[in-house]
């Protein structure tokens, strides 16, 4: 059986995932700012309003706390809401709902209530949207027990993670990096749900493990190409799921390569990269042949000017340099 391939963008893959969910399960609905008539600020839900109507593609007022809370209530009431938050920056307004309610209710109710909610949000820099629309705060969410945090980077994951997230009885937060939406590629026409647990080795190599996720994956793969030209075989791991982290895959890789560099568009201090580095130290210390390297964003609010924005976030050259540094080559 050879799957037929179609050319598709990341944006379309997410849309197809939402469409499939709406078709498969009548309890599913999409809610967020401008997701309906406008088609979503990143045009992800374009056309769905016409197809599914205002009951299931619901435009929400400009109140992240309000509609996220409504989503939690709907989930508690038996529906399967998909809440879209424009960017992770705005999600801070809904942080109380997410952290204090969605993440806690199963535990505080002694398992009586679950919150099968999916929250999608855009994140990351690169579109010159300045400091209030460009940040990468995934690490903050990955800090919180009670929720799962996903970062689909590939078309397969963009297409397949949503359904699995909806199947999960607990809240799942999905981060879609803004620079991925326009990426196109080949995807099996019958692509569907994929597991949401576990990291994926996107490229095998024996010299250094490059650990990344989301918007930095393709920069990291490019860096691996550059390194390969110089005889350095980099293994690239796509975390996919930021909480819980797939320690086993990370440790197994580092046990082979003995070196690791973590590429994380979040700020270095208190970052997801810091967490991973700490785990490598805890679980793979005796395998390490060099200090763990990190490539993170500069510790500034993401700047508006293009050149400064580029300079602030991890780029391919930075990743190459960091890999060379741990190899001393």
């Amino acid at each position, binding site marked *: 059986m050879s799957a037929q391939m179609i050319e598709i963008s990341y944006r379309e893959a997410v849309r197809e995932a939402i469409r499939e969910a709406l078709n498969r399960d009548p309890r599913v609905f999409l809610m967020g700012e401008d997701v309906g008539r406008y088609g979503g600020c990143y045009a992800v839900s374009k056309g769905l309003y016409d197809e599914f109507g205002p009951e299931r593609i619901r435009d929400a007022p400009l109140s992240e706390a309000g509609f996220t809370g409504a989503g939690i209530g709907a989930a508690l009431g038996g529906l399967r809401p998909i809440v879209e938050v424009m960017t992770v920056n705005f999600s801070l307004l809904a942080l109380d709902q997410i952290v204090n309610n969605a993440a806690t209710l199963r535990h505080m109710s002694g398992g009586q209530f679950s919150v099968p909610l999916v929250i999608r949000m855009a994140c990351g820099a690169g579109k010159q949207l300045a400091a209030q629309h460009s940040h990468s705060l995934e690490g903050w969410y990955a800090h919180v027990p009670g929720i799962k945090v996903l970062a689909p980077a590939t078309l397969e994951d963009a297409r397949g993670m949503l359904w699995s997230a909806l199947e999960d009885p607990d809240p799942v937060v999905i981060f879609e990096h803004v620079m991925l939406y326009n990426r196109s590629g080949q995807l099996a026409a019958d692509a569907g749900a994929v597991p949401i647990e576990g990291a994926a080795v996107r490229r095998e190599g024996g010299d250094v493990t490059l650990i990344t996720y989301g918007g930095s994956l393709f920069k990291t793969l490019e860096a691996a190409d550059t390194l390969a030209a110089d005889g350095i075989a980099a293994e690239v791991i796509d975390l996919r799921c930021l909480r819980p982290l797939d320690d086993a895959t990370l440790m197994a890789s580092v046990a082979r390569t*003995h070196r690791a560099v973590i590429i994380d568009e979040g700020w270095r201090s208190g970052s997801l990269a810091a967490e991973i580095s700490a785990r490598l130290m805890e679980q793979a*210390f*005796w*395998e*390490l*042949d*060099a*200090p763990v390297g990190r490539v993170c964003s500069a510790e500034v609010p993401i700047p508006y000017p293009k050149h400064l924005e580029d300079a602030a976030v991890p780029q391919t050259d930075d990743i190459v340099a960091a890999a060379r*540094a*741990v190899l*001393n080559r």
Partner: protein
Amino acid sequence: MSRLYRMPSLGSDMEAGTLIEWVRQPGDRLAKGDVIAVIETQKGAIEVEVFHDAVMGRPLIQVGDKVPVGSPMAELEDASAAPALRPATGIPATHAPEPGPAVAEAGTRTSERIADQAGHRIGHRAGTGTAAQRRRASPAARRLADARGIALDAIEGSGPRGAVVLADVHAATGTTPTTEAASPPRGHLDLAAMRQAIAAAMSRSKREIPHYYLSHDIDLTAATDWLTARNAQLPPDQRLLLGALLIKAVALSLDKFPELNGFDRDGHFEPAQGVHIGCATAIRGGGLVAPALHDADQLQLPTLMTRLRDLVGRVRSGGLRASELSDPTITVSSLGERGVDRLYGIIYPPQVAIVGFGTPALRPWVQDGQVVPRNIVTATLSADHRHSDGHRGALFLARVGQRLQEPDTL
């Protein structure tokens, strides 16, 4: 007090060697020059020697291990200190160990010796005494070094900030993480590897050495007549080959041209102590080795011939010695009977000159105003212009020609 016997460099093109055999065992006394092991290199199986009197200590690598040049292969104990390292004789094996002498100093030579006699090694054991400067080493390197029982201090670090990393420990212990392939049998020549070695050496030579070339036709009639007459009276195993005369003539002619006999050391010339002629020897099927005929200027021709036969035989069957590969001070390459008129050699670094002889042939030659057929060989000199000039090179080549006119003085 122990020293380390390290993988010797048998030429600038050698990067690593594979241990094929320990010729000597722990506890054996070794005199300077004794063969301690046989290693496989790109030039075949080579017997390697120790450079000073010693007692063979603990081997640090195993047969089949391939390690880079400079990696420790075995511990060598001082010859004078050796008796203390052996268990005292005369103690019946069934006796319980006697209480050792009181240990006055912790972490000292005394405790090391006692531990050594008891079969323990404390040299690298973490003690409670004053710690020395901690060696920067990666966790993985520390673990491997610990497992292999070698000291981090003995290892040079190549990692970030000079840290000892896994690769350094692998190098020091003679293991490679991926390739631990069995070594080819002794005597086997890996012609592909040899080709690589030649390629590396010759590329380096052409890249770095500004060669100048001289050519000189030499009348060999006197030499070949003398040789024929001499050989006619002798059984085959005492006969000489022309090649031996050529080597001797070059060796004797170098006395007035020390700038051609020695080594380039980072752009400076280092004259050689003796005249060790590298005898370029072709291998059937391709490949070339130029091992040293030591002190060729001092050898009588029959001895020189015997040594040459031995050397050529060992090039082809394996069993060259390390010093023979690393010692040549100048190379002589001779095409022999089946070749062409002349060859222009490429200098084998770090040497500074190579003398080439084409195939001798009857050619028209002017002698006493008459054109006469004579047995002529074209000799060439390729030399390093950084250390000598064409004028001196020409005088040298002319002198080689003169020496060959008086074969009985060779």
